[in-house]
């Protein structure tokens, strides 16, 4: 595969760094308290946590879909504050949503995958080529003219993955990618993800799945993000 094979300037600068991040929902109170976190090249970090622990919130904060009242987010060496800065970050950090249905809004698969490149300023022709290539890399060739709304859960997940990968992100952020997938689709996804070179942040409730992928496991509880001690670490 062909994604982001330019080496980073220095391997020990984190790709994404979070400093003292706190967040609270209006009526619910504090969800994240003083979270610190760094993601380095070719890491696959799994974040565990109960329902409602704030995992999705954390991911949305990282790419600036929600704005933190306190704390810094440093993406690829630049502190992000404004919408414009975050927009630059989002092109490099692809986020896969918890529910594929929320992410697929175009009539056909090809149009949906093209959406990202078009936003990045590619021409239509380039966007089509890139999209077809990405679909092929994921083994989804032949799906381009299928109608998104009529795909099965597993297929939808693969298409959302394609629509993120086509933007050639340096970091992949996956919010419960195995949600509502059956075993076969899960195994397929693990294989695809293991073959990708990107650094990843993954949320998963699925122990087996995360153990297979994780190079580091974290735990989010009571708003605090801590290193998981009894981490079983896969071979990177």
């Amino acid at each position, binding site marked *: 595969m062909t994604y982001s094979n330019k080496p980073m300037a220095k391997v020990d600068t984190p790709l994404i760094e979070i400093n003292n991040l706190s967040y609270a929902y209006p009526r619910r109170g504090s969800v994240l308290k003083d979270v610190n976190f760094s993601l380095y090249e070719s890491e696959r970090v799994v974040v565990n946590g109960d329902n409602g622990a704030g995992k999705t919130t954390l991911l949305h904060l990282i790419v600036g879909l929600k704005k933190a009242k306190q704390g810094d987010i440093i993406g690829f060496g630049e502190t992000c504050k404004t919408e414009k800065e975050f927009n630059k970050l989002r092109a490099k950090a692809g986020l896969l949503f918890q529910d594929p249905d929320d992410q697929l809004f175009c009539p056909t698969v090809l149009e949906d995958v093209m959406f*990202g490149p078009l936003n990045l300023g590619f021409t239509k022709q380039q966007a089509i080529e890139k999209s077809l290539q990405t679909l092929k890399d994921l083994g989804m060739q032949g799906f381009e003219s299928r109608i998104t709304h009529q795909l099965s859960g597993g297929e939808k997940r693969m298409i959302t993955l394609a629509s993120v990968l086509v933007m050639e992100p340096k970091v992949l952020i996956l919010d419960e990618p195995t949600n509502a997938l059956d075993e076969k689709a899960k195994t397929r996804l693990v294989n695809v993800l293991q073959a990708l070179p990107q650094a990843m942040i993954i949320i998963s409730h699925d122990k087996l799945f995360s153990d297979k992928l994780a190079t580091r496991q974290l735990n989010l509880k009571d708003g605090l993000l801590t290193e998981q001690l009894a981490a079983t670490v896969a071979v990177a």
Partner: protein
Amino acid sequence: MSQGLEHSLTSWSGQALKHQASWIDDIDARVRVVCSGLFALVVVSSQHFVPALLGLLCAFLLVKSSKLNIKRTLRRVVAMDLFMLMLICVLPFTTPGDPIFSVFGLTASWQGLLHALLITVKANAVLLVLFSLVATMSASTLGHALAHLKVPDKLVHLMLFMVRYLDVISQEYKKMRRAMQARAFVLRTNRHTWKSIGYLFGMLLIRSVERAERISDAMKCRGFCGRYYLNDEMKIGRVDVVFGVAFLCFLVLLIGLNIDDLFK
């Protein structure tokens, strides 16, 4: 600015405007609805400044006593007043009358200016009374009150359904909108933007229609056979009568001020 507007609107889910508990909350919902309706009728048909200004004063008093969040209330009124500002700029030039000043050969008239100001006063008075008397109840209470006031049943249930599902659908909208943002989508003035928003909107429609089918199914499962029911007893108490009568007296005063030839 457009982003801010969008945000403040999509978070509404049928709840009352933010306010602290006050004596207005204790007044029967029907009385509040009827009073504000009559108020609008009287104030809008006022020909003179005195009744309109009195109405505005009354509106301010009601806003104060309903303990509405002043900042938010003002923000809503200001949005409308921006439109009024345009009117104030145009009307003096298009209404013939005693000149104030003239630019580029156009003459501004006192009559036009006064007319524009009168409209502004009326519109603000009506809105503020609506905010303090009606918007301080939740939309479903409003629905119940309307049902008691003999508004057609279907219309009331339509409103209740709408209020019920506004939040669900706006959540779906926001999620999809965020997913687009996450793929580096920025709203611009171009066809790509319009097409994407069109797709988003179409998808929202489809998901909503599918939801409507599921709701119908759920209703069937509970033996639905073509009738809806509302449950709540509304009783007129002493407070309601006192408030209603006082308010009516005030309105009669405003009408009286209008009839009086004093100002002619």
